[in-house]
């Protein structure tokens, strides 16, 4: 494949370099295109009513997504409350107790596999344990589905971050008489703090943009939340339903909601990056 002559070799090299620059530009171009479209179309939908009003039927002026914003925040908070402590503790087991145990090996493997299972499958699972038996879609089910999504991500990053803490610190903490649990929670956690925060932020960012698992669990609703025992409005399923609808004003609101979600997710990602940077100094 390689041409023999020097000229041919240089030309081929130059061509590959040109292609590689173009590919990088192509990636940037698509990122720019998507960001531009969402900002451009979304900004037109965002006004005071968008944040304060309930959804309106198509054709009626002045609908908003106040209930969906609230619902998404509540479900994300619920998922964080359930998923993060469980994930942290599982990560502690993997890093501190189960480094070489058989259970540790199985769990480590399963955590990695579970991270690769599509979120829509987790939605089906939660549907069959929390929606079908109780006969109604609910905010609880949505929060649980998202927390199952967060759990392996948090567990994995916690294990990675705790494993980076040098053993000397562990030994020093135990040597001054700390029990194991205090050494872990108050000393090793502190050493790994920024990494742990990054992991949590990234997992929150990941679930707050999720749609598929909510389709089968929280569904959507056009009313203000009364309790978590009924279908709960949320931004992503609202985007899905409004974008698929034939009404222009609903599409418009879907763009606004997309802008909102994208901004939140990207800010969380940036925050996570800054948390890491701080550590390096």
């Amino acid at each position, binding site marked *: 494949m*390689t041409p023999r002559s020097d000229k041919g*070799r240089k030309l*081929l*090299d130059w061509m*590959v*370099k040109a*292609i*590689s*620059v173009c*590919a*990088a530009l192509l*990636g940037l171009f698509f*990122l720019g295109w*998507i960001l531009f*479209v*969402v900002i451009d*179309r979304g900004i037109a939908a965002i006004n005071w009513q968008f944040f304060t009003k309930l959804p309106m039927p198509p054709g009626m002026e002045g609908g908003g997504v106040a209930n969906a914003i609230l619902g998404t925040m509540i479900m994300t908070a619920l998922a964080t409350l359930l998923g993060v402590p469980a*994930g942290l*503790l*599982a990560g502690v*087991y993997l890093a501190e*107790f*189960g480094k070489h145990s058989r*259970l540790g090996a199985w769990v480590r493997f*399963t955590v*990695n*596999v579970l991270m*690769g*299972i*599509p979120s*829509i*499958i987790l939605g*089906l*699972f939660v549907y*069959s*344990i929390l929606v079908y038996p109780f006969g109604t879609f609910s905010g609880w089910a949505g929060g649980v589905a998202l927390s199952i999504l967060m*759990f*392996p991500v948090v567990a994995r990053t916690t294990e990675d971050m705790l494993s980076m803490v040098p053993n000397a610190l562990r030994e020093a903490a135990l040597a001054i008489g700390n*029990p*194991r*649990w*205090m050494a*872990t929670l108050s000393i090793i956690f502190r050493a790994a703090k920024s990494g742990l925060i990054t992991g949590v932020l990234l997992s929150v*960012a990941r679930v707050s*943009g*999720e*749609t*598929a698992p909510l389709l089968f669990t929280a*569904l959507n609703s056009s009313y203000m939340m009364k309790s978590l025992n009924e279908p709960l409005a949320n931004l*992503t399923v609202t985007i*899905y339903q409004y*974008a*698929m609808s034939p009404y222009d004003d609903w599409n418009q609101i879907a*763009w606004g909601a*997309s802008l909102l*979600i*994208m901004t939140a*997710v*990207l800010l969380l*990602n940036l925050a996570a990056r800054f948390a890491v940077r701080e550590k390096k100094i």
Partner: protein
Amino acid sequence: MEHSATGRQQSWKTSRSMDLLFRGVTAACAAFVLVIMAGIFVSLVWNSLPTIREFGFSFLFSKAWDPVSQKFGALSSIYGTLMSTAIAMLLAVPLSMVIALFLVELAPPKVSAVVGNAIELLAAVPSIIYGMWGLFVFAPFMADHVQPLLSEYLGWLPFFQGPEMGIGMLTAGIILALMILPFISTVMRDVFAMVPDVMKEAGYGMGATTFEVTKDVTIRYGIQGMIGACLLGLGRAIGETMAITFVIGNSSDIFISLFEAGNSIASRLANEFAEAAEPMYLSALMELGLVLFLMTLILQIITQFWLKRVKKKMGGDLL
């Protein structure tokens, strides 16, 4: 609990049972992962029992999807899942390779950091936004500009014939490629960066060009890691739901042409689950979920074993 006055030694904080409790709680949380995994499998099998009993293995090989006459088969969905993933991999793998090459070998460190971060941001954009953008912006662009060109120059191939509507298998594959591109390219970048400098410098010292060093040194050294990167991307692509649901067109037929509409397992689930009232319909969708679960499970198991091998060889963790 402070019965004796020996101070901290006897406090509940330092008691042995507290440590055991802590260990037990963490182990329980860890074991919960296994419970979830088993729960997913059991619940999917349990809920798809009606169709498993009714259709057996023919479910996997039947094209039928007719909720009215209660005939269900997974073939068109499996085909759509595999086809859209194949298109995505065909586009994303070579692109990721050259992007990784750019980031590691060509760009000055500052440019590389900025471009690398920007590409990683592509991974952070939620799936549903790719879907919106795909449906309202990219699909019309495909219909107006890309598909006419393809059918003019490559129309003699059966893949590029048919209606130029924008939505369909090809558009779904391209958007999927865009979504997995950041995963594959960042892992490949890390693999490229793991190649020891002395090996590359030896190549340059012999008078090799950048391309030749990449081809004969970097790729040869990092091939296992690069395959690992592809496996990770493949795992992402196969279960991707929302973006595909918007643009694949949701038809239950199987067409050779990539311009035609199709469906994938995930898109069918997202689309039809809310309508499925009868037990058989629900069971058929659950069995589709089971098929997707088993596909990704096997793929993830292979990926994990492969990555373990790579780690042993290259001494570093991917992802």
